[in-house]
């Protein structure tokens, strides 16, 4: 892919990767009418620098909540979350986030959406060249002037990806960003994200309910149970990348995980 050449030529400081420590985290939502929802209960996980970890599980297992807590958008009811040993004090550009819905700013075109982070941090002037670089990287250079409603789902997610990455985050949190895309676009995007990860080597935490995606992309897979959300099992995927979806080991792992998930569904 042409992007690979561009990546190696880019004069950009290497993004340092973050490590994440989650210790015994609980999250309880209390509704105004008195009902209590335990989203997470005693969740613990350690993510090493540069690792790609997937969180997989059925709806209601608290995976999105966990991601939002690492991003700093929510706080735990109990427990400790640390990034590089430091407690999390709110959102930051060093912890990039890709949402399920691209949530591009509708009043800005693609280029301005991508540079939004630079504008927000007041560094647009010094980093202006990066905007063109990232437009090329995600293949949206010919569409830079378009508005979000004129983009397809895949294009919008690519723009959202560029928007998050242009800030050189040390950690990228992905909350089912490919869920709304069709199978083909999804597979292509998975390769693109993997490629970006391979070059930048930042830490990535991916929430997904697609088992194939988890096996294809991750170093480790964390299987979660629902209500309350807990770690059921952590599986290390030993295979080298690129992985083949019809490989015997791939399929074996797939059945194993399916079994695990079905079992915990009872």
């Amino acid at each position: 892919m042409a992007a690979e050449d561009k990546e190696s030529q880019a004069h950009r400081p290497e993004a340092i990767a973050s490590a994440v420590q989650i210790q015994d985290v609980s999250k309880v939502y209390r509704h105004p009418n008195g009902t209590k929802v335990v989203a997470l209960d005693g969740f613990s996980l350690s993510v090493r620098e540069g690792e790609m970890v997937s969180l997989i599980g059925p709806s209601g297992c608290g995976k999105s909540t966990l991601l939002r807590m690492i991003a700093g958008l929510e706080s735990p009811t109990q427990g400790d979350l640390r990034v590089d040993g430091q407690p999390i004090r709110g959102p930051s550009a060093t912890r990039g986030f890709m949402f399920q819905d691209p949530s591009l700013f509708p009043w800005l075109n693609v280029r301005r959406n991508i540079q939004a982070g630079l504008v927000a941090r007041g560094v647009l002037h010094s980093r202006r060249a990066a905007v063109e670089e990232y437009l090329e990287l995600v293949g949206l250079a010919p569409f830079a002037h378009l508005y979000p409603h004129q983009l397809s789902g895949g294009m919008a997610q690519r723009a959202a990806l560029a928007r998050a990455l242009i800030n050189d985050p040390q950690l990228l949190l992905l909350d089912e960003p490919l869920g709304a895309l069709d199978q083909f676009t999804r597979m292509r995007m998975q390769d693109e994200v993997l490629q970006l990860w391979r070059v930048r080597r930042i830490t990535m935490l991916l929430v997904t309910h697609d088992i194939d995606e988890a096996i294809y992309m991750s170093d480790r897979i964390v299987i979660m149970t629902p209500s309350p959300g807990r770690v059921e099992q952590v599986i290390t995927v030993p295979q080298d990348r690129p992985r083949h979806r019809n490989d015997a080991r791939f399929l074996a792992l797939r059945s194993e995980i399916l079994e695990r998930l079905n079992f915990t569904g009872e």
Partner: protein
Amino acid sequence: MAGAICALGLWDLITLKLNWAPLPYFPGPDRVFQGMWEDRTILLRSAYHSLLLQMSGFLTGAAAGIVSGVLIGWSRRLHYCGMPVLKFIGPIPATAYVPLVMVLFSDAFVSGSALIALTVWFPVTMLTTSGIVNVPVALLDVARTLGAGRMYLVFRVAIPSAMPNIFLGLFMGLGASFLTLVVAETVGVKAGLGWYVKWQQGYLEYAKVYGALILMAIFFSSLMTLLFKIRDHILGWQQGLIRW
């Protein structure tokens, strides 16, 4: 254009030719245009004064409305204090405030302007507040994960998101300002279209009254069109997203 000529023809027919609408209340077009032409200097000067009064009131009210709308919409504390005040002062019509402004401001122009500003302030604030309150949390979350501070969140996310609502408020304010303009000109101004209408009404010169009303209609619709043009430019991004 064709519509205007038809209307003119119809008017002529009804008044002069068929005498369905009798004098002195319903003069024909010939007398109206003659009256307009006779008083053209006074009318132009009045139009100018009305424009000054209306624009100064509208711009002040709109600016104040946007500021208070953003504050009330964004800050929970200000929302709590501000909303009751808004709901109490806002709906009171301008006419009720006439004696108040006459006492507060010695100058007739300033009183009139203040009246218009007050009328415009209410809808602009209400709709700006609603626009800010309705900013999707997802957009604010995204901005925060991109490293945005409060300034960026308010000025570069909340306000652009609220723009369609803000413009709705501006349109409502503009319409309200036209109504209040006529009231404002009873406060003792020396020139203006509303003042002219009252003056000529006193002499039962209805031809001249209609002349001024025609001028008022042109004046108001031009300003409305101008605001539409400004909206089209600023909200251009909505094209294709909503039924334009």
